[in-house]
């Protein structure tokens, strides 16, 4: 079905802004942090606050900074006074879902130009505490997100027969990619594969260097329709497909290694974008990999490799910056993790690639790129596919 037939407005990214992600931005308030990213996105789009029709904001659960409904206090920092402002909640995938809600407002012609932003200021709290709250009558055992996901990684290793070095290969790649991204949090200039492999086991089989850092940061995008794109000073990234899917945290038959909701979400995006062979037709992927083993796991879940084969793609070097399917050229979540913003950074980095504006971590000739986010107990998924050309129709 063509766009005209569906009556949808084509959506494009015309502005992107990020803060330099770091462990602690003690020089700014939360308002100051989000403002910095938003201002950069507006500057990139050649727009000002008055040009924005609505603001859609996302962040991880309120426990992470202990400010209830921070979006209310951020309305003036984001120029949202007198405009609609909404907040999206989908745990770690929220940055992706937030961008999709903003995109849908334009596609539906509710608004013409929308500022969307996601942030986390992890230094103001302790995410491991926030994710391990005691529950009465239950044995306290859960040790943060790493403790939750490590058993699923072990299950993947058993199911796929992957050698136990694959996780370190991913971490080594992503940390080197981060060196080419000035906004990335970790810049480990002396990183070696041996150092990754020698780092301590935190949640065996997950090593310290195979986990994401804790970051302060924000990411913003300006989304607009066809008319807005015509006025944009820089090349747009066109949205060719976007979808969200959810499933319960726990249920009999849940596949934690490759959740059905993730497969369905990817299939929906590919259908919208007319993608039949993602491995060949997609030039770069920014996927949500908070623990390095999730790269091969998501390669399978998203259809880039057959079940049990994702680790071979990683091991072959295909996902390196100069491989035929670069994954996380920005350095990914493994190098930068302001939790609520991490999904939006994936979406924005995918857009930077097809705009040809990724700088040193640009994938040559990237025409179609995918942004991916997941959250909760591997239960919320958000993805989009962006292209350098407008969608057909």
């Amino acid at each position: 079905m063509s766009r005209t037939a569906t009556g949808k407005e084509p959506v494009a990214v015309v502005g992107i802004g990020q803060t330099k992600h770091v462990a602690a931005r003690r020089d700014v308030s939360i308002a100051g942090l989000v403002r910095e990213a938003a201002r950069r996105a507006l500057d990139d789009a050649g727009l000002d606050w008055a040009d924005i029709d609505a603001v859609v904001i996302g962040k991880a659960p309120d426990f992470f900074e202990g400010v209830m409904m921070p979006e209310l206090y951020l309305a003036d920092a984001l120029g949202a006074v007198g405009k609609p402002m909404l907040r999206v909640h989908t745990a770690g995938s929220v940055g992706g879902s937030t961008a999709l809600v903003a995109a849908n407002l334009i596609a539906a012609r509710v608004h013409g130009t929308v500022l969307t932003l996601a942030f986390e200021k992890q230094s103001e709290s302790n995410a491991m505490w926030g994710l391990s709250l005691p529950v009465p009558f239950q044995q306290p055992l859960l040790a943060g997100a790493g403790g939750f996901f490590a058993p699923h990684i072990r299950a993947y290793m058993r199911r796929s027969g992957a050698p136990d070095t694959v996780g370190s290969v991913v971490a080594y790649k992503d940390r080197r990619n981060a060196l080419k991204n000035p906004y990335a949090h970790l810049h480990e200039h002396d990183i070696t594969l041996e150092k990754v492999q020698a780092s301590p086991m935190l949640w065996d089989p997950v090593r310290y260097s195979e986990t994401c850092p804790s970051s302060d940061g924000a990411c913003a995008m300006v989304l607009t329709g066809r008319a807005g794109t015509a006025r944009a000073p820089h090349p747009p990234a066109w949205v060719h497909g976007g979808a969200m899917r959810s499933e319960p945290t726990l249920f009999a038959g849940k596949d934690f290694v490759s959740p059905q909701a993730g497969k369905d979400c990817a299939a929906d995006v590919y259908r919208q974008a007319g993608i039949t062979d993602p491995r060949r037709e997609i030039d770069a992927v920014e996927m949500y990999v908070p623990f390095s083993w999730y790269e091969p796991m998501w390669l399978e879940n998203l259809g880039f490799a057959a079940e049990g084969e994702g680790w071979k793609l990683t091991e072959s070097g295909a996902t390196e910056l100069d491989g035929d399917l670069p994954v996380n050229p920005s350095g990914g979540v493994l190098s930068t993790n302001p939790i609520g913003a991490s999904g939006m950074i994936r979406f924005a980095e995918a857009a930077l690639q097809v705009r040809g504006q990724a700088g040193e971590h640009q994938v040559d000739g990237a025409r179609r790129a995918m942004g991916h986010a997941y959250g909760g107990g591997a239960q919320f998924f958000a993805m989009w596919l962006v292209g350098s050309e407008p969608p057909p129709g």
Partner: protein
Amino acid sequence: MPEVLSAPLVVEFPFTRSLGPVQSAFLTGLRERTVLGVKTSRGQVLVPPVEYDPATAEEIRDLVEVAPTGTVTTWAWNPAPRRDQPLRTPFAWVLVRLDGADTALLHVLDAPGPDAVRTGMRVRVRWAAERAGAITDIACFEPYEGEPGAPAAPHDGRFADPVTGIVAPARLDYTYSPGRAPTDYLNALAERRTVGERCPSCRKVYVPPRGACPTCGIATAERVEVGPRGTVTTFCIVNIKARNLDIEVPYVYGHIALDGADLALHGRIGGIPYDQVRMGLRVEPVWTEGGRYPDHYRPTGEPDADYDAYKELI
């Protein structure tokens, strides 16, 4: 029907706040008995100050000093102060527009009773004896009959030893109730039995039960005893202590599919060196006197389960 369990649940954390330039000047000013606001490009003085103009979205950095005297713009009487509120005796919540300001500040007014409070009354700051750079450096407001304060005057916001961050302790007191099905499950555990519930539609046995099947979306009621033995489907070895977890590391966090259950529950694996735990290990619960749940699961000594026997439960 047996009583549903409930227990207090306290969630508290000392959150920190980076203040940024404007709030830093404001709170440091309070420590120095100086009330600062900001002046917008349209000449409005906002107290308390904000970093960005609510009307124009412009960044504001022009600080001004306003008077410690002002006018109550509205109020509400609080007859029963709660823990951590600014005064222990009954008081009025007030919005005070300080002399020189165009907006009002929320604080409290020390007054003998609601009859002593009215909109339009004149008040002044009562400074706290010990000040640290916090809104509580203003102990409260009190009635004031003297002359109005001077108009707002520019201030560079500079003080020695500025406050750049604060600690904002937060505490939430809940009464937690796990609900009917988990209560049944917990009561059975107290008798050292593990009892799940079967979905009448898909026939899956949920342990622990939630009272509804998350796949079919219908209530479950049929009780099914499972275990006590089970299979470790997967696990990790935890080498890092969570902030609020009182447990020695390393420990093994295991997913255990009890015999007869259709999904794994989570428990600690013990009675075996942590580096010898493996997928497929057969285990049984180890109970402690008065425990609400098994302390841990230990090997039964049976041969390991075949991968195909539990791979659908991972």
